[in-house]
């Protein structure tokens, strides 16, 4: 066997060996991926049923996280884009503008933007929202219930025994499949 052939033979052997390793790794990866996918498909996470939620405020204080993993979310498809939004404005605002004294949210977590006369868009600033549900009550009382509370899964620890679920007076917390972790109002409207 020439030096060149030896070199070729080593390369071939290495190629076969590396190929076998690679195939094994790919197989293991596929098997692991399949197992993870299968196990995840059976997983559940906590979520709030917006039809049952009464916006009592417990979500803000009973979560093990501070601030809570529960945030207000906005179903734009349901929203009336009201000029006088009762999720945004106090019941008797001094003026129909975004002045702090007119706002309902104690943490100033709702942003108001003019779209066109007489429509305004409202967005939740999740960094400021503590999930107290005050805006949810205002919107559901006087508006279209476009604002509602949801557990945000980028924060939620998915505790076995959710402290908020135990403290929920409306029994609105339930486990939902991890593949569909949100109960959004727009789905039904």
């Amino acid at each position, binding site marked *: 066997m020439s030096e060149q052939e030896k070199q070729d033979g080593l390369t071939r052997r290495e190629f076969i060996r590396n190929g076998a390793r690679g195939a094994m790794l790919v197989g293991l990866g596929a098997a692991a991926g399949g197992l993870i996918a299968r196990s995840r498909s059976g997983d559940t996470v906590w979520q709030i049923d917006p039809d049952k939620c009464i916006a009592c*405020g*417990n979500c803000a204080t009973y979560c093990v996280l501070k601030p809570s993993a529960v945030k207000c979310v906005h179903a734009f498809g349901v929203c009336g884009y009201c000029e006088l939004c009762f999720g945004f404005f106090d019941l008797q605002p001094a003026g129909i503008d975004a002045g702090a004294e007119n706002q309902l949210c104690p943490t100033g977590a709702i942003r108001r933007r003019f779209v066109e006369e007489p429509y305004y868009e409202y967005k939740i600033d999740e960094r400021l929202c503590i999930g107290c549900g005050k805006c949810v009550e*205002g919107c559901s*009382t006087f508006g279209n219930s476009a604002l509602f509370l949801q557990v945000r899964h980028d924060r939620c620890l998915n505790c076995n025994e959710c402290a908020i679920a135990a403290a929920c007076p409306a029994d609105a917390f339930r486990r939902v499949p991890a593949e569909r972790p949100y109960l959004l109002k727009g789905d039904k409207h």
Partner: protein
Amino acid sequence: MRLMDKRRGIPACHPIVTRLAGRSTTGVIIAVVIAAAVAAAVVVILRSDPTGRGGSKLGEEFVYDDKEYRRTDPALVNYKEVGRIETGFQTVRGIAVGGDDGIYVAGDRAVAVFDRDGKDVRRITLDDSPQCLAVAANGAVYVGMIDHVEVCPPHRRRAKWDSLGERAIVTSVAVSGGNVFVADSGNSVVLRYDTSGKIISRIGRADKSKDIPGLLVRRPCVDVAVGGEGVLWVTNPGRWRVEAYSFDGDLKSHWGRQSENIEGFCGCCNPTALVALPDGGFVTGEKGLPRVKVYDDCGLFKSVVAGPEAFAKGTVGLDLAVDSQGRIIVLDPVAKAVRVFAKKKDNQ
């Protein structure tokens, strides 16, 4: 003779007493510590409230407080409830009074007809869910379905008018002579039909040349009522007012303003129900703060028929009618019942 501790030269009992005293002090300290720990644990457990019975404990600024607006000054309430009819429906949508003071209720997949005393007279079954209805002088019942109207004459075949399209949400029907007015909240327009189902004109669309701002519908709840002298009254809930149109669609006048106070219309969109009274006045129904109120022919507030105290919190979808005796007939969607209100006598 006392035993002496020879090593210390004192009675033998002394060291023992001393040892006992030392043990006793340590025991007391341990007992106190345990008791304090138990007490602290009890306090923590009692204060932890894992079931949430104590509420959120958030400050006042986090509490939505509309109690003040849910109370009605009793002096303003000029009506009292005198009767109640259980409809037997799971869902109720609309109400109308016929020429004989019969009460027609649209719900589930039927129209139930009651006589003026609440006796169940008959049921008209439908293929789908009715949304609203009106009764013509000849007894024909015009039923607003989600996207079309169905006509149920007393002794003839039913007619089904053409669909108004995918966006259509029919929320009110009114009949006057040969005109049938249909409020399509989904398309923000009122359609004027003849009795054969042909569209004659469209009313309520924005038209700058005619100075008509247009119906502003943030939630499907436009209601229509026919007044005297060829006037069609239309609620414009997004603008918190009631507008008068000619049958050809010209805006003649309007009244109403936004306010949580009793004189105005509350929330984002109200009124949601309207009845024109024979004397030219109006009865209105609201959501949010569920209220039924009477206004005079100029749109000035007169009195309250029923305030928020009379309805369950969150009541949406009140519908109204008036009978020949001036009784206000209210369809309560939460109670799924017809509630009859009559004017109080002077001494009541």
